[in-house]
């Protein structure tokens, strides 16, 4: 006969109907003769029933405030969905879905530089001239260094950055629109595809800055992206027109 300890070890599996038939029959034969093991089985069944019927409880205090606070902090480096999907989000809603760490933005910025540099080179080749370096890519009225801060060292908000670049970009876009009818379709495709890439990057950069308005890194990133757009538009505006 097996030792008592061995039987005891099997009792939980017996309660869970987990024993093989042969083991179960042997244990049941033992139980018929062992008061202690029968009592233990009853206790274990009691524990299992009790556990299965445990009620749900409520936290002793409302935890939402702490969650809301941490969610709000999580807005840092996030891009609200409205900027990406074009959906409207009511004021007070917390932007999320697309999030960017500083390193991710740096990678995105590098990719954007590659895209715009390629486009600028292609457009410059079509115009027969050399592309202008970014630092020289100044549209009329554009005289800002990309530092992310103003003269007092205060980090620029997204609105301020947008306001700075609004006029020169509008002028260049107007010039491009007027020249559009005189550009060949292939060139227009290059310009439009590149502008779409830059605009997407701008939306993401702006959203990230709006979510974390005190970030100099994000402010400068937004400005740099603005300047990429200026550079692209400026190159497009230099294209020779078809007669």
């Amino acid at each position: 006969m097996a030792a008592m300890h061995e039987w005891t070890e099997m009792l939980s599996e017996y309660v869970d109907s987990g024993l093989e038939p042969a083991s179960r029959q042997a244990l049941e034969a033992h139980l018929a003769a062992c008061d202690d093991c029968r009592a233990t089985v009853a206790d274990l069944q009691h524990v299992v029933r009790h556990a299965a019927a445990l009620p749900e409880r409520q936290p002793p205090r409302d935890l939402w405030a702490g969650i809301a606070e941490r969610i709000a902090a999580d807005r840092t480096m996030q891009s609200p969905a409205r900027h990406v999907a074009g959906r409207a989000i009511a004021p007070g809603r917390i932007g999320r879905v697309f999030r960017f760490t500083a390193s991710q933005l740096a990678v995105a910025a590098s990719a954007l530089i590659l895209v715009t540099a390629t486009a600028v080179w292609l457009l410059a080749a079509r115009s027969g001239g050399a592309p202008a370096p970014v630092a020289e890519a100044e549209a009329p009225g554009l005289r800002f260094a990309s530092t992310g801060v103003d003269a007092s060292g205060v980090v620029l908000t997204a609105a301020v950055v947008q306001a700075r670049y609004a006029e020169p970009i509008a002028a260049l876009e107007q010039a491009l629109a007027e020249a559009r009818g005189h550009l060949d379709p292939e060139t227009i495709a290059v310009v439009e595809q590149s502008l779409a890439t830059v605009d997407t990057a701008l939306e993401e950069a702006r959203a990230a800055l709006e979510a974390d308005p005190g970030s100099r890194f994000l402010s400068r990133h937004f400005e740099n992206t603005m300047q990429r757009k200026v550079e692209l538009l400026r190159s497009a505006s230099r294209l020779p027109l078809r007669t």
Partner: protein
Amino acid sequence: MSVAPVAAGIRLVAQSSPDGDRADAAAAAAGDSAAYERLYRRHVGRIWTLASRIVGADEADDATQEIFVRAWQKLDRFRGESSFGTWLYRLGVNVLLGRRSADATRHARIVSDEPAIARHATAPVRVDLRMDMDAALERLPHGARQVFVLHDVEGYTHEEIGELLEVTTGTSKSQLHRARMALRTYLEPDGRHA
């Protein structure tokens, strides 16, 4: 709040509305914090109860907040293939099991619980120390408590527990048995429980 067992052994919050949850989850994924607060209100009891039983009442508040923050961050991955409650619950289990220690030490901890749980199972308990199940759970070694809660309270199988805790099914069964043996000494026997 009442709960109902499901095929996978995981209980669902009976009072939450799947359609309401799905709509609120979609809104929250788009940034609507008010919708997310509604989800929180509907599910916090379930999650807090789970947390209190796995990591203990002292840590339950912080663990619950962590689960809801992590769920917020992952909402865009919720596809509606399961109910929101089930998705949140599974995420919660993973967060809770990951809180205590790194995976590399989990197995060692659970196995090292064996002597402690054996003492619990054999130590005599005075009648005036008998307590309710939740209080008794707090007295179990951490690994045994996890196995017991996952199996007997939450309905996981030993195979699922083995995967979650990275232990063998044999270890899971052994811990469960010892946890039950310890708990029986803390509980009022049938017919005398209030």
